[in-house]
């Protein structure tokens, strides 16, 4: 049937792209993870867990804390944009909050490095305000620095999605609650948030996956041990040419994100049905 052939021909480019740039490299990397010399085995994984199990936990904890903070701040900003009663403050906030979205991760890392260091901008300001003495200062260039950089960079993205969902809510559902005497905090938590929970979940999951794959920020801010898996993968390849362990580490972070992706898929299936 020529019509069917034509249809097949039309999807072929897209199919080829996926095959060539997604399936094949993924398969190669998965196979590579099990390759030990000229046989297959779990040696790479054993080595990964041996050397980097604390980094796996470190990565998961950092990304989880960041995701939670991003969620809370995005709810606060989105809530104020939706329920705020001072139109000028709302306009200023609406204009301001998106900027970090347009700054690349590497620049965020660099900015945070100069800002959060022991004698960085933040501590200098605190000292000049008399809040800290030079002896009391500590650098934030450890896990805290990574969390701050992630939250700063990813919050606008989640807020953008969340504020959009909040803005498209039926305003009268908010007014109805106000009419019955609900405070703005209660309206946000009991009326607005449950109606946009799906969007928030999607935003947070996408953010989670993005943060799992960022290399520049841990390299810039926290190039010591423990560090994030992405830094370890880069190190295995650049310093040792050890593709086997790098592939194994890649697969482990893939499994970590897969758990979250599963929630996303479940949610989108539920939404479509």
């Amino acid at each position, binding site marked *: 049937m020529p019509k069917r052939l034509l249809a097949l021909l039309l999807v072929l480019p897209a199919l080829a792209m996926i095959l060539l740039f997604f399936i094949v490299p993924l398969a190669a990397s998965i196979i590579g993870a099990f390759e030990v010399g000229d046989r297959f085995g779990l040696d790479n994984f054993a080595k990964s867990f041996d050397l980097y199990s604390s980094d796996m936990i470190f990565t998961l904890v950092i990304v989880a804390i960041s995701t939670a903070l991003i969620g809370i701040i995005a709810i606060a900003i989105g809530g104020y944009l939706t329920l705020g009663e001072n139109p000028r403050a709302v306009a200023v906030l609406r204009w301001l909050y998106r900027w970090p979205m347009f700054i690349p991760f590497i620049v965020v890392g660099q900015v945070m490095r100069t800002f959060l260091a022991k004698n960085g901008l933040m501590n200098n300001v605190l000292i000049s305000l008399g809040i800290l003495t030079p002896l009391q200062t500590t650098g934030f260039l450890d896990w805290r620095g990574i969390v701050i950089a992630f939250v700063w960079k990813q919050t606008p993205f989640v807020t953008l999605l969340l504020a959009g969902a909040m803005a498209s809510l039926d305003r009268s559902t908010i007014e*109805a609650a106000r009419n019955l*005497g609900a405070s703005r905090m209660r309206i946000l938590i009991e009326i607005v948030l449950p109606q946009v929970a799906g969007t928030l979940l999607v935003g947070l999951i996408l953010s989670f996956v993005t943060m799992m794959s960022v290399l520049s920020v841990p390299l810039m801010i926290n190039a010591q041990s423990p560090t994030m898996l992405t830094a370890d993968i880069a190190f295995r390849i650049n310093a040792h040419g050890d593709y086997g362990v790098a592939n194994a580490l890649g697969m482990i972070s893939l499994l970590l994100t897969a758990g979250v992706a599963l929630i996303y898929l479940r949610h989108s299936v539920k939404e479509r049905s």
Partner: protein
Amino acid sequence: MTRQAFLKVENLSVGYGGTTVLTDLDLSIGKGEFVALLGSSGCGKTTLLRTIAGFAKPSAGAVSVAGRDVTQLPPDKRGMALVFQSYALWPHMTVAQNIGYGLKLQGRSRGEIEKRVTEMQALLGLGGLGSRKPGQLSGGQRQRVALGRALAIDPEILLLDEPLSNLDARIRLTVRHEIRSLQKRLGITAIHVTHDREEAMVMADRIVIMNAGRIEQQGTPEDVYNRPASPFVAAFMGAENLLTMQARVSGEHIELMESAMSPPTVTGRGGRDVTSGPVELRFRAEAASLVRNGEKTTPAAGALELRGQVASVTYPGGHWRHAVHLGNQEILVDADRPFDQGETVKVHVPESSLFIFNA
């Protein structure tokens, strides 16, 4: 108004940005009264309701309830509950949670809330639906949940913003009577915004007709229907047939000059505020009657007689509706039997159904 004013709106002006929606508006409503705000879209009726409810801030004027100035109070401190056009039910809550939310906010005990919610469900015929979500209800049921949510907190004043406009035509007819009898039973003061003339007539004690941010006329349904105070009200209340003539007013009589389509007619002034000069005549299709040209009938005293030709006949149900050509104008006239197309006829409009205004 014989009843003492319970809800009072004085010199109210409301605007959004640069445009004023309401200007210097006064309205007073008695306790237990059902008032309909009637007007076409954009006339300011919803803005007036939202200002009374506290969702829109007036630029001038005051709203008071039982002598207490509530102009600056938030919506929940006014003793009013609003039923929204879209119902505004919370989709993530069950029917019972929706109805009970206002009570929960008031900090009532769980037992008390449950009792009141059951009471409301029984009152509104929602028994057994308490655990459903709004998405699983029909339009009429949702509307009743919205009503139950508003009534559960026992408000002094119930505000209804076109609550029937999202319902099927048939359900709408029954819900009209349901809301009206519920309001009577509870003795609650109600303000109902609508653009549906019949709905306002059937439901309200008093109709307030609004146009371009002002009140055109207010009165009982019979009043505004039979004694429209302006051409706008007459047209809005269904007197769509429009003719212009020359008139001379003398004492209690109005003399309508002879024209190409009508002989000179003298009709009673009936308290109308009309002066000599060009006038605008309005009447309803069902108020006029048709007579064969040859037939020897003299119109009743004060009635207007017009000569014309039947242009088309339709049957909307119950009677035949004729489009009648009068020169280059066309009017609609109902009759119990059909007249032939092209037939020359006489149209009689009785004095009481003739609305005359200075053009």
